[in-house]
């Protein structure tokens, strides 16, 4: 029972990541290997804020912002005049600087946990669209393989930077809630409930976003028919930035959720991301509900195998992908990539 509970908790995190991976792939055809890095960035940024230190991610945000302005500044000036340029500069340089100033001069480590989490998100989430602009947008029309290679590069760069920012030491953050409940024979920790509850809430919020809002519909439309979406004025760049922002949001939030129950190192993100990826593959990188169910399966499988055969727990989880791939390739017809 305890294992099952552990599995479902982890599974909820994998489910979020799997959804982000499916979303990013559907809209931009990018297999987003660095998804896990956002988990580590979120968790470790929060840990540094708690420790009262200035997280290096905020400098990364500033550096990425400067790059974006270098790429977009001239174009914005030519097209939309000074107003548009100021907007680009404002979001990409002034905003990170404001965050740096805030963290430097305001003792944020005494803030309540919720405020710290919000601050973490404010630092990490804008990295998503910036990375899209810098790394992916110039090659947005390239093949899936080239986009995958770019993903590997972004992943390696982000892990390296994480080592630089956070050091090789692992961190944990304080729990959202120390409460624990006894349900029948089971002890349920407050943090597990937080993880599962937040995951569910986020999934519902995403469903509402895609079902009800025009921006959510625009992302779906881009995933269904890129050419048609373009003719409606939904630019691939806009869709890409929006998608990467959601992916970064999901990643960072997952990191914040998991930080109190697991020690996160600078490179932990990759493994977590990969498990989300296994779940996404179970859903064929296309189905959201199957990906979410697959994620729970991955989480539960991992929990049980770590108990009975802990040396092999990763092996067992990743071996899961083989029968899934075999089954998928046998049942689905090969579809030529038509773009």
């Amino acid at each position: 029972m305890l294992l099952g509970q552990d599995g479902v908790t982890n599974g909820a995190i994998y489910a979020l990541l799997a959804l982000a991976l499916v979303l990013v792939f559907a809209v931009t055809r990018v297999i987003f290997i660095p998804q896990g890095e956002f988990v580590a960035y979120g968790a470790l940024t929060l840990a540094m804020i708690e420790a009262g230190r200035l997280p290096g991610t905020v400098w990364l945000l500033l550096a990425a912002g400067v790059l974006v302005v270098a790429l977009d500044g001239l174009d914005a000036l030519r097209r939309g005049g000074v107003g548009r340029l100021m907007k680009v500069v404002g979001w990409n340089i002034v905003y990170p600087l404001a965050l740096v100033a805030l963290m430097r001069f305001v003792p944020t480590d005494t803030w309540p946990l919720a405020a710290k989490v919000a601050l973490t998100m404010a630092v990490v989430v804008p990295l998503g669209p910036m990375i899209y602009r810098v790394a992916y947008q110039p090659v947005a029309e390239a093949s899936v393989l080239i986009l995958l290679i770019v993903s590997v590069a972004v992943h390696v760069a982000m892990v390296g930077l994480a080592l630089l920012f956070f050091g090789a030491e692992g961190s944990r953050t304080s729990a959202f809630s120390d409460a624990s409940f006894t349900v029948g024979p089971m002890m349920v920790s407050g943090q597990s409930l937080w993880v599962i509850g937040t995951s569910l809430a986020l999934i519902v919020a995403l469903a509402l976003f895609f079902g009800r809002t025009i921006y959510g519909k625009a992302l779906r439309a881009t995933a269904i028919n890129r050419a048609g979406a373009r003719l409606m004025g939904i630019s691939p760049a806009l869709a890409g930035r929006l998608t990467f922002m959601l992916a970064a949001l999901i990643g960072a939030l997952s990191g914040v959720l998991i930080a109190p129950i697991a020690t996160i190192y600078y490179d932990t993100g990759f493994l977590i991301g990969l498990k989300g990826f296994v779940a996404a593959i179970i859903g064929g990188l296309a189905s959201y509900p199957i990906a979410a169910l697959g994620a729970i399966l991955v989480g539960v499988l991992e929990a049980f195998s770590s108990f009975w055969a802990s040396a092999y727990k990763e092996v067992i989880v990743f071996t899961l992908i083989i029968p899934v791939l075999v089954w998928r390739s046998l049942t689905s017809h090969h579809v030529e990539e038509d773009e």
Partner: protein
Amino acid sequence: MMANILEVKDLCVSYGKVEALHNANLTVGEGQIVTVIGPNGAGKTTLLSAIMGVLPSRGEITFDGAVERVPEVERMVSRGMNLVPEKRELFGEMSVEDNLVLGAFQRYRMGLRDHAGTMEEVYALFPRLKERRSQMAGTLSGGERQMLAVGRALMARPKLLMLDEPSLGLAPLIVREIFRIIGELRKRGVSILLVEQNARAALQVADEAYVLETGEVAMSGPARQLADDPRVIEAYLGLGGKHQDRLAVTGE
């Protein structure tokens, strides 16, 4: 003098070394229907794609009084140009209503949140779409899909609507319905650039016409005049149709 909504000067488009469009010149007056006819592979679709900014081109495109040196799709949409492509490019796994809502995406982004009203107008024009509002676009019949594609473009309240082969693959009755709607749109002040293989119907509804052959404008002039031109009759209208009609009329 009537203002021109669109002026195209010396437009060239190449696919690699092959030139698909050579020094094309074309003008669409405000409130006019202008048609481009021509055989398969003449460059009609290429022309529309280049004006819209989907394809890179050389030449000068003036839309609504401003020169667009490098037309860009999103910008053209925001300035009031809309293209209904030959393949319709609907969002198959989304409902009819969602498809329509997305037609107004660019207006919504610019802060013009009037899509509910526009949708009622589109439904008035295409009552069939209203009946099927919650159906997936991919399950519609060919004619309904074309209506949805046109309706979706109208959601953007375009100044210039470009239609690429709206009658392609549709039953004659539906084709008539589509052309009736094209005429109806003109009454509402929408300028239309219409590319058609169905030359007879196109020349009937249009004010001005261009004949495109192997990437160049071969003939141009008022649609009625072109419809009477023997070369057009022979190449595009066929001897069996209108020519015979005319003979019959003069014979009386």
